[in-house]
């Protein structure tokens, strides 16, 4: 633990004024406090944003608006979310533990750091934690690591379940700095590791996530989040699939798909979406559609199984969705 200053602003303007180089926003604390204890993060300024007016879960003609400080558990039980966006509620309820969900915020969830064991252990090299120190996972223990979007410098998976569902649903993220506000589509919000794995998103120094908007659609209500893992609770995904179908009779008019546990960011699968569009919901359709899902995968010594697991996770999710129709 290192010394840091601590402030508790009451407005967004005040909060972003405190932010910048060396500062970290504190919401639920389930990532930041954890990583500060491990000495992985050592901010010199901690800005507690819990007094900011960034609450509210509201459904209107534009879609679902969720304040960045809403807790995961509150969003998961919201009636509108459960009815119109079931995959969001499912992704939340399959995350972490009840205690963590009671604390963790929606904004923080989108910004949580990877669970790569090397990132979290300061006695090992890790390019994401310490640029240029090397990637331990490339050659060592990597069963849970990513196969998509990886680079020679980083193979860490993005850990969020919620972000996978939100990417599939075309969510916008609302951001604020002292200079003003902007809105960024979530699927362009995250950065591939490339040669700069410590840069994980497009946030500017001191920029604050204030909320998200999930648009209305013809498919969000017909959606599922399927999470595959070794343990039935309290574990991150080996593979997950967020799938939404718009139906026309027995035919899939269009599909929205993103996958987790396999990519360095929440991973949309537009080619699979296209392969399903206009097709009957049959096992043959599903098998054919997922054949390209793991294209471009770069398996490591222990995680080659994720290619097949990814395809099967998708087929299972499609099947669940088709059967629940």
């Amino acid at each position, binding site marked *: *633990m*290192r010394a840091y200053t601590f402030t508790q602003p009451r407005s967004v303007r005040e909060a972003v004024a405190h932010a910048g180089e060396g500062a970290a926003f504190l919401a639920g604390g389930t990532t930041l406090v954890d990583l500060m204890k491990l*000495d992985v993060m050592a901010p010199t300024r901690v800005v507690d944003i819990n007094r900011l007016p960034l609450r509210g879960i509201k459904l209107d003609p534009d879609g679902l608006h969720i304040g960045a400080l809403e807790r995961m558990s509150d969003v998961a039980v919201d009636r509108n979310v459960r009815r119109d966006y079931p995959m969001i509620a499912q992704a939340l309820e399959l995350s972490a533990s009840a205690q963590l969900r009671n604390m963790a915020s929606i904004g923080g969830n989108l910004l949580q750091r990877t*669970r790569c*064991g090397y990132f979290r252990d300061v*006695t*090992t090299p890790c390019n994401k934690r310490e640029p240029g120190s090397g990637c331990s996972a490339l*050659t*060592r*223990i990597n*069963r849970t690591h990513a196969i998509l979007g990886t680079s020679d410098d980083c193979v860490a998976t993005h850990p969020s379940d919620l972000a996978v569902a939100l990417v599939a649903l075309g969510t916008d993220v609302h951001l604020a700095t002292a200079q003003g506000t902007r809105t960024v589509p979530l699927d362009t919000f995250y950065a591939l590791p490339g040669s700069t794995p410590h840069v994980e998103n497009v946030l500017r120094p001191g920029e604050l996530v204030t909320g998200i908007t999930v648009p209305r659609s013809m498919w969000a209500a017909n959606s599922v989040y399927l999470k*595959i*893992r*070794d*343990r*039935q*609770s*309290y*574990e991150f995904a*080996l*593979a997950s699939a967020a799938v939404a179908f718009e139906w026309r009779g027995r035919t899939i008019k269009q599909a929205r798909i993103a996958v987790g546990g396999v990519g360095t960011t929440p991973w949309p699968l537009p080619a699979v979406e296209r392969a399903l569009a206009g097709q009957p919901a049959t096992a043959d359709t599903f098998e054919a559609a997922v054949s390209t899902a793991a294209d471009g995968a770069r398996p490591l010594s222990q995680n080659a*199984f994720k290619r*097949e*697991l990814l395809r*099967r*996770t998708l*087929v*299972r999710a499609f*099947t669940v969705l088709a059967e629940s129709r």
Partner: protein
Amino acid sequence: MTVSPVGRDIDRVDGRSKVTGTARYSADYPASNLAHAYLVTSTIGRGSIRTMDTTAAQNAPGVVGVYSPANPLGLRLVPGIGEQYAPLEDTQIRFRGQIIAMVVAESSRQARDAAGLISPTYDEQPPRTSLADEPRVPAAGPPGHPPSALVLAPGVASIEAALAASDVVVEASFHQPMQHAVAMEPHAVLAEWNSDHTQLTLYSGAQLPHTAALGAAIRLGVPPTAVRLITPYVGGAFGSRVIPWYDAPLAAAAARQLNRPVRLVLAREQVFTVVGHRSAVNQTIKLGASRGGVLNAVSHVSDASMPFVGYRQMQPAVDTSAVLYKTPNLHFDQRHVMLDVPPTCAMRAPNEAPGAFALETAMDELAVATGIDPVELRQRNYATVVPGTGLRWSSKHLDDCYRVGVRRFGWSARRAEPRSRVDGQWLVGMGMATAIYPGNRIPDPVQVRVRLRDDDTAVVSSATADTGTGGLTMLAITGAHGLGVPLRRVKSELGDTNLPPGAPAVGSMATASTVPAVEAAVNAAVAELIKVAVTDPRSPWQGANSEDLTYENGHLRGRGISMSFGRLLTTVGRPSVEATAAAQPGPEATQYEFHSFGAHFCEVRVNRYTGEPRVTRFTTVVDVGRVVNAQAVRSQIVGGVIFGIGHALLEDNPLELDTGRLAASNMADYMVPVNADIPAIDVHWLDRPDSVLNSLGARGAGELGTVGSAAAVGNAIYNATGTRIRSLPITLDKLL
């Protein structure tokens, strides 16, 4: 007439204090002028420290002491017990995660902060880490436990010849990774000396209080009588608190130097390396049998990891393949592979759990090879005497465990053909396995003190340990049973070396060993009471013969008078009488073989798409003699089965071969089952007292459930999928 509590569902006598937080665990004890310690551990797997600059740590706020190879604490190793090195006494690095420095400060945070300022440099050597590639060495078994054995029928030249002459041969090799106890309470100690440093009090979780105190005394170079160890509450042990590690000696040595009490609590990741684990092990089983499944030969070879720093040799065959089935030809060889890894320890069912996974999986493979039902196969090879020795068991009703288990579980619904039961997305399978665990009493004398008080209550005391198992409640139950008084009038005490040396909480022996000592102490205390009755001038029985008085249900009777012990003591003006008595096994210990037995039945579902195995039903029927506390025994068996499920499906701490780093040394990555992974577990016991072992007929139950349960899971997965996984854990990637 007082109804005995033995065998009933008895709530823990300390349940309220545990759930309300008033129970004090080692790190909860207060002390005035307390200093806090934090360990620094090595970040290489083998080599030596080249430089270690501790200046910044020494100058950090609140720091009162920094101990390192440049400023060691003079600890000594105990030859043959525990780790064979003393931390800080040299610069050698023997494994990654070894203690290399300790910082003591005014607060735990200051100690931790300062510890982070110590960054040694090393001269590195490649650690020897490969269980598969490093050379095998023969084990050196403890007395009476040869590491290898060969029993051949007359005229048979070798085990290979016996196998070659068999109609059906099954040969299978198994791998099990190292396993950690991950007890809820991290290892912690408070060390406090008296003013002239002649007496040390240690508050530290221990399974054997007197042994832990003795070990600390030797490491500190003080007489054994100088150390008192207090450990009434222990937050789980599972073998990780059998021997004293270096946490208590380090804290005590620093406390002596600093002249103030020191508390040391291990960080969770440090528990994985400072404290021992169960060895990784590779095993090969060969079974030769007739077409009818009758065994002709059993061969069991094991290669278990053995740390260069020492501690425990794994011997997985001797209490599984060597005793479980009747066979005319038997061979086992238990070897070691020396590695630069943290120390090992005797984790719950230390030999039997890994051994039974291999043997009971191989038996399932034999059932498949011969087309015989797995239960029937085991009954065809049922041993009534120990193979090779001809010794009989004190009490063995394993055949009833099979029969009752088959009925309770609904085994007849199982289809032998794999993949023949499908329920929606899920393949459904059933498997079974046998459980066996030694049912011994500790050979040493076990002492118990019984005190009868003038308020008609009694105190039963013994320096055994309650590691969360219910030992304190067991003492109260057996005391109430012996005295014939209600349980609420009996107080029990344990976990303090100032009490008479009691049974170690190891080897599932505590209850079986304590029962006879409680009985002896009750008799001795009653004799003291009668002595007072016939000698004290204020007693109505003064001058009577002792033989004229009888004790029953808390009362003395004779000459037409009846009086409770409390009233007699009040009458004669004595607050209490007490007696301490000892008990130890007699000649029966060598005349019989003692084991507890059981049969596991498991149903799993394996997802057809994504392969994850989920346990959906589990029935375990055990033969553990007479049950002292139904609730505690049920909990023990359920806990043992959960251990087996974790071992089968989840637990793994991958060892990086090039660095010696254990990659999952935290409770997120080292996965033990959560509630969602565990179905309702149906536990049944036969309740057939083992009257040879002790007067109550109670045998151990603490480790039994852990034995064979992983094999039952794996066998069920085979039945569901047709895929045999011989390398644990059985994760979904192996079933895709």
